């Protein structure tokens, strides 16, 4: 894959050296903030997967959040006050996650915390956020928020959950790829969400799941599972996460080779931060992927999308502008950007002054509904459900053509919605 935007733009530099930006802002370098009643910065905590299994995501989540922060402050911050973000590593571990929530809330005194992706970190940390009564905005796509497992202080306004993702796309898969599906998924909770909700959606469409292959999390080679795929399979549905995913996709390619194969529909999670033009992945040509946000810049990309890409420092192929080999976790990372701007909208609606107004902030976010596409929502418009604390957005199905992911279908917001399983607004704070 050739990259046309090689070179370092000023934006990109400032993202990388962004750690210094907070300090600069705090020293009052930007006079525009002076008009606010209190010009003390608003402090936000970011629970970051800097080390551990989530580090690929963490690195891009940090870059995205830094870019969003820069734009936010250039536009006057929140309520006229500058904003700073304190990034703290959770090692992608639930125990450390809870400790980080504690550290950010009690020691750094942040106004709200956001950013975690991995479900076990979210579920491990949410109880502590609830006890400390600090708004905790997760970017995790798990179904744990909308299922009612967590608490009133935990919200997911930046990214659609797995249940909505899979059920909204099932009809298209049935109608365009085939009705007999074999699913390959990791043998733990994240995989079960896919298994349960996609199977239900397939059956609702008159299709059939002919086999479910659950792969244990400790596996590093998948060759012996592949012969278990029934020959009658019309669509192979795969979703894998972790460092071994590339092995899985390559072995799938070796298995089918140039022979006949079913249609393949995968979650881009299998290939986040991986160049789709890597050796061994040629067979992906012509297969389909779910994408939360299209990695390859589409022909009809909105102005917001283009500006967002430039601000974060990602080229039209979804790689870093300074290093074409450094591929972004593009399908997920928009959630940190959008969550930051939701915090801004929520704080401004609540007339937020300080930690005493945290409850008002949660109530203000709960009151949100339609979120039109804008610079604050570059992935597209969304609908927030205050009762379940979950947002619903458009999902994309892309086809690999010439090493690029080209969108062939975009779901509507209604496609992804399901009945409420919980009403958090009736719970006490």
């Amino acid at each position: 894959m050739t990259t046309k935007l090689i070179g370092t733009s000023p934006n990109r530099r400032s993202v990388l050296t962004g750690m210094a930006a907070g300090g600069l802002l705090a020293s009052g370098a930007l006079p525009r903030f002076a008009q606010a009643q209190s010009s003390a910065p608003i402090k936000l905590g970011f629970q970051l997967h800097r080390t551990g299994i989530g580090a690929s995501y963490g690195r891009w989540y940090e870059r995205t959040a830094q870019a969003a922060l820069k734009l936010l402050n250039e536009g006057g911050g929140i309520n006229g006050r500058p904003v700073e973000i304190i990034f703290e590593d959770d090692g992608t571990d639930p125990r450390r996650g809870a400790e980080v929530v504690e550290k950010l809330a009690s020691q750094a005194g942040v106004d709200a915390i956001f950013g975690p992706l991995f479900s076990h970190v979210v579920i491990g940390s949410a109880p502590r956020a609830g006890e400390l009564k600090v708004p905790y905005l997760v970017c995790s796509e798990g179904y744990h928020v909308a299922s009612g497992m967590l608490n009133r202080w935990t919200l997911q306004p930046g990214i659609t959950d797995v249940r909505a993702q899979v059920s909204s796309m099932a009809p298209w898969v049935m109608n365009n790829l085939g009705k007999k599906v074999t699913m390959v998924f990791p043998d733990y909770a994240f995989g079960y969400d896919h298994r349960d909700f996609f199977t239900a959606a397939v059956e609702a469409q008159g299709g059939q799941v002919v086999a479910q292959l659950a792969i244990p999390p400790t596996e590093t080679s998948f060759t012996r599972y592949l012969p278990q795929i029934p020959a009658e399979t019309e669509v192979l549905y795969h979703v894998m996460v972790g460092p071994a995913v590339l092995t899985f996709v390559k072995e799938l390619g070796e298995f089918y080779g140039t022979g006949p194969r079913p249609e393949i529909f995968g979650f881009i999670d299998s290939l986040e931060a991986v160049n789709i033009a890597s050796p061994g992945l040629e067979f992906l040509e012509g297969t389909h992927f779910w994408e939360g946000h299209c990695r390859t810049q589409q022909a009809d990309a909105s102005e917001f999308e283009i500006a967002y890409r430039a601000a974060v420092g990602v080229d039209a192929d979804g790689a870093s502008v300074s290093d074409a080999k450094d591929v972004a976790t593009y399908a997920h990372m928009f959630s940190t950007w959008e969550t930051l701007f939701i915090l801004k909208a929520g704080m401004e609606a609540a007339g937020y002054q300080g930690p005493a107004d945290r409850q008002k902030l949660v109530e203000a976010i709960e009151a949100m509904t339609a979120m039109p596409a804008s610079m604050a929502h570059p992935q597209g418009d969304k609908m927030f459900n205050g009762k379940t604390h979950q947002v619903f957005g458009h999902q994309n199905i892309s086809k690999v053509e010439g090493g690029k992911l080209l969108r062939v279908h975009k779901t509507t917001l209604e496609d992804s919605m399901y009945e409420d399983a919980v009403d958090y607004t009736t719970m006490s704070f």
Partner: protein
Amino acid sequence: MKSLALHLAVIALLFALQFVLPPYHHTNIARVMVLAVFAMGYNIAFGYTGLLSLGHALFFGAGLYAAGLMANGGWTGLATLPAGLLAGGLVALAVGMLALRTAGVSFMIVTLMFAQAGYLTILYFGPVTGGDEGFVLPAAARNLAGFDLATETPRYTLGLALFAVALLANLALVRSPLGRVMVAMRENEERSRMLGYNPFTVKLTALVISGLYAGVAGAGYALMFGYVGASFAAIQYSILPMLWVLLGGAGTVLGPFIGALLMFYLIDLSSSVTTAHQMVVGVALLALVLFAPKGLLGTLRERGLKWLP
């Protein structure tokens, strides 16, 4: 006498600390105390009896899940805490019956395999255990005799109570005849056999006591912090208590606590200073082990404080 006074002083200090600590460190110390109970249990098997186990995550996990699953069934701390204690002890008994047929590195690997099988079992029963994601304890279950463990003071108090009981019991154990036999077993198994002790029984007893410690620590952790997940039963949680014990000093009563405390703040402080915090931790571990190969208290004991238990 001197040592009893020292340990009582440590407990008193920890009691007093809760009134002056800022909120963040308040919770940290509560957490370190309950993890130190786990480490003390490990020390009883490893430090005193010489059983190098890599399977203690299983005992901790047994306590954690016993408490967590019972909490889901509506039980509160009065029932779940003892249940966790028993679960840890029973699992240790079962593992010990088999694993103690081996010794040395074989024992290490067998316990590792059992713990790994336990971890995978938790994943296998995902619908009940929540698998890798785990689950959050219902608020009503995090209650011990009317005290809400989700609030600061009861949480700290429970952590301190568990720690104090565990510490004093540990002290009593090492001074008891059983404790001496355990050490004898570590130093020279053949000789203690000739003196009429059955190595298998002594080791099994030590392992079960160790399991009781780990189990109650797991249950305490679940109640105090409200989350149960498979990551606590993973291999990492078998290595951590070993690291804490070795840092603080294997075969010392206070060593596990010192080690856990040290390791916690090493990670916490270094991650505030640099993004490459693992490097700092690694270098610190190397420096520590070069400077104090027997752990902090172990080295102190060698250099003069001979009375340290």
